[in-house]
């Protein structure tokens, strides 16, 4: 059973690295912001595998919910700027 958890965590870590690379190098800013939210969500699942349910709930609500909201608000206000 713990081999299954170990395999799942390795798959999640690889997905997290790929998503983080997308978040810092994608041309379109809205995709980069969504990728940062996805990194927070995968980190929340990792927190659950590390036996920390309080931290997982906080990271899911704040890191992947409110941070993405804030970014999209500001992006909508400064719309019209090309990227990089």
């Amino acid at each position, binding site marked *: 059973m713990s081999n299954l958890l170990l395999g799942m965590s390795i798959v999640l870590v690889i997905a997290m690295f790929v998503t983080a690379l997308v978040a810092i190098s994608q041309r379109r800013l809205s995709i980069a912001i969504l990728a940062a939210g996805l990194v927070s969500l995968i980190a929340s699942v990792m927190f659950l595998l590390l036996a920390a*349910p*309080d931290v997982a*709930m*906080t990271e899911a*609500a*704040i890191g992947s*919910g*409110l941070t993405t*909201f*804030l970014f999209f*608000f*500001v992006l*909508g*206000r*400064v*719309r*019209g700027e090309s990227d990089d």
Partner: protein
Amino acid sequence: MIKRFTVLLLLSGLAAIFVSLALGYVPDASLNQSALYYAENTVSDTGAANIVTAIIVTYRGLDTLGEVTVLFLTAAIVGLVLTRGAKAGKGKPMMASGELLTTGAGLLVPLILLMGTYVFVNGHLTPGGGFQGGAILASGIMLVLLTDPMKEFSHRLISVIESVSGLTFITIGGLGILMGAGFLDNSLLPKGTLGELFSAGTIPLVYSLIGLKVGAEFSSMLVSLSETEGS
């Protein structure tokens, strides 16, 4: 080119430090001394079933007071910085949101607010607490903001909720000095039996106040951002 090379050099130095830290790490086999004290004496000292909640509210309550202060400062500065700009009216009226969004939000927002309240009232029994419940409350307010962008949110109501919760939190802490064993002591209310809703002294009350205050602060940050003018 030079800049990118310098950045890569710096990051490889940092990576060498990280690798040496990771290779020298040995996981513990048994709990260290402070964790052992928390594991054995939490129930007899405070009566809470969630040890992380007991640490945040009672054992290290002073750090939580500092964090609440930092959040209050952040919300105040965001409100100050964003309303100095040109706020010349609301602009042209936007289209009404679609019927799916309006009906769905009308059904979901009371459920989201109820779930947020449940999470911070039960913080001492199950995983959860004030910060998580406050973030869920702010998400509910955010849904209302999305469906009706022209809605006027009264800043006064949000600031009244935030100030009253913060003041009550400090008052309970001060009462701990008069009637208990120190600032933010737990024994003002009875400890009760383990696992009941009304147990663990003042922890449910204090965490509910913290949850309301954090939720009001996040909502005021979101409302300040949504009231700015498009450039």
